[in-house]
């Protein structure tokens, strides 16, 4: 084997997202792996590396999954990168293939998150002896969440969206709610989404407020789910069947970035700079521009987040995200459909699965296997995730016929 310039997705699978009270993370992850192997028409004997992600479990998910689907002694990389964990697992498998260490790799992400409630907030309680005593990095005598801003995800991402509005204007509670209305509408065509119900603007704006301007349906839906993908080198793919070659999807860019230093990212995560950096790298690698994309799955963990990523992914001109949305472009019948799966707000967000599930969605369309929600003639798509802290994964995908 030698270093490979071409990387292809040979098989990919996602479970239905939702509530699985009788399945554990091993059951769900194994279902995704078995589906991806079947889709690729290979077995664990063909796989040279496994990269696996799971944030909320007990650790060692990769080895647990091997025991469930086939133990061959291959190297396992258990990865953790917040909400970008799935994309990081895929990136890890791709790097191994690209380096020529293996010619086929497997990536899986799985999460059990149904009923998890609010993520990110809390902190330690005041000590039992009722004495103000400094502790931690800031020498705090009491929890800072709620006293010095918010640690909750809905609140952090609300501020990210409001900051965009402050900088460029044009945002409102209603605008953010309309973004959510789009994604809930899209999910009605996705049988694997956790929620399939359209919601009216009035329903969305009238629902429980979590962190202004994000109401409950404008937040990503906590749920259970898994997704897995088999990647293969171009040289190996040529030795496989014509059917495998026909359905293979080319990965023309696989990029992972973290935050470069920014003044304000010390106190409020900056999801913009690293996404823009990743997008620039991805377009350069893929040799395409945003105008060439037929669909985008981006990280709409909150309605306020989707808006800023139109701009960060350069789907619009700088500062033009509001106009881009208002033009109707990101609706499934618009110029550049965004989150036709329903996105994290309605399809759901089982954290570690998300970064592979969004690639599964793009692959469905590029293979012309999107069923009732097929974007006709889709040839090029982009999948994006953000893990707060931060990590950004972007993959650009092209159909084999492109």
């Amino acid at each position, binding site marked *: 084997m030698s270093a490979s310039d071409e990387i292809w997705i040979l098989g990919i699978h996602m479970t239905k997202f939702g509530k699985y009270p009788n399945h554990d993370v091993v059951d769900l992850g194994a279902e995704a792996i078995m589906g991806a192997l079947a889709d690729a028409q290979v077995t664990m004997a063909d796989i040279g590396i496994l990269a696996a992600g799971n944030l909320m479990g007990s650790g060692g998910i990769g080895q647990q999954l091997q025991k469930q689907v086939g133990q061959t002694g291959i190297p396992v990389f258990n990865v953790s990168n917040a909400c970008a964990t799935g994309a990081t697992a895929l990136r890890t498998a791709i790097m191994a293939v690209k380096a020529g260490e293996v010619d086929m790799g497997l990536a899986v992400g799985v999460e059990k998150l149904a009923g998890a409630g*609010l993520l990110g*907030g*809390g*902190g330690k*309680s005041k000590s039992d*002896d*009722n*004495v*103000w*005593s*400094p502790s931690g*990095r*800031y*020498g*705090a*005598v*009491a*929890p*800072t*969440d*709620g*006293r*010095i*801003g*918010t640690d*909750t995800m*809905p*609140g952090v991402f*609300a*501020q*990210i969206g*409001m*900051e965009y*509005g*402050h900088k460029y204007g044009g945002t409102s*509670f209603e605008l953010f709610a309309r973004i959510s209305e789009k994604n809930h509408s899209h999910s009605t065509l996705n049988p694997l989404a956790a929620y399939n119900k359209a919601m009216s603007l009035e329903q969305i704006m009238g629902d*429980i*407020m*979590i*962190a*202004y*301007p*994000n109401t409950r349906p404008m937040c990503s839906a906590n749920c259970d789910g898994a997704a897995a993908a088999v990647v293969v080198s171009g040289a190996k793919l040529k030795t496989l069947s014509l059917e495998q070659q026909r359905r293979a999807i080319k990965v023309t860019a696989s990029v992972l970035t973290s935050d470069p*230093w920014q*003044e*304000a990212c*010390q*106190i*409020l995560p900056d999801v913009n700079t690293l996404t823009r950096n990743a997008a620039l790298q991805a377009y350069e690698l893929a040799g395409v521009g945003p105008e060439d994309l037929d669909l985008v799955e981006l990280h709409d963990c909150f309605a306020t987040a989707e808006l800023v990523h139109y701009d960060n992914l350069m789907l619009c001109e700088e500062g033009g995200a509001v106009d881009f949305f208002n033009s109707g472009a990101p609706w499934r019948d618009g110029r550049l459909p965004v989150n036709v799966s329903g996105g994290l707000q309605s399809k759901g967000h089982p954290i570690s699965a998300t970064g592979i599930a969004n690639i599964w969605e793009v692959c469905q369309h590029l293979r012309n296997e999107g069923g009732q929600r097929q974007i006709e003639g889709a040839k090029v798509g982009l999948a994006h995730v953000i893990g707060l802290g931060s990590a950004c994964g972007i993959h650009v995908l092209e159909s084999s016929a492109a």
Partner: protein
Amino acid sequence: MTDTVASQVPLVEYLVLGDKPHLVAQECTSCGARFFDRRNACAKCFATDFRQVDIATTGVVRTFTIVAYAAPGIPVPFVSAVIDCEGTSVRANLIEVPADPEHVSTGMNVELATYSLGVDDNGAEAIGFGFRPVAA
């Protein structure tokens, strides 16, 4: 805490109490980047020398959210914000203002204010901080 009981303790070490309460930061002596906690090297330029600097006590609200749903024990609603204090971004709650979008907006002028968090068994009072609106 030793036998000598402080009468007041700040919520965090980077809040300096006294006649004119203010925040302080660790500033990189090489590039001027500021941090509210300790760093081994500057995240911007990797230099390793820092000096303590005072942060402006007035600023402009760059973004905010009104948190209506928080972890147990945290009173809601409250306003979480990022304030541009003459070029240094500060994270804080907005206080002394109703927590609704009619009374809070980006671009508001605000100033640092302190409040009591209560007295402990040793008689020490913890002091927190927030930013309150000022006339433009």
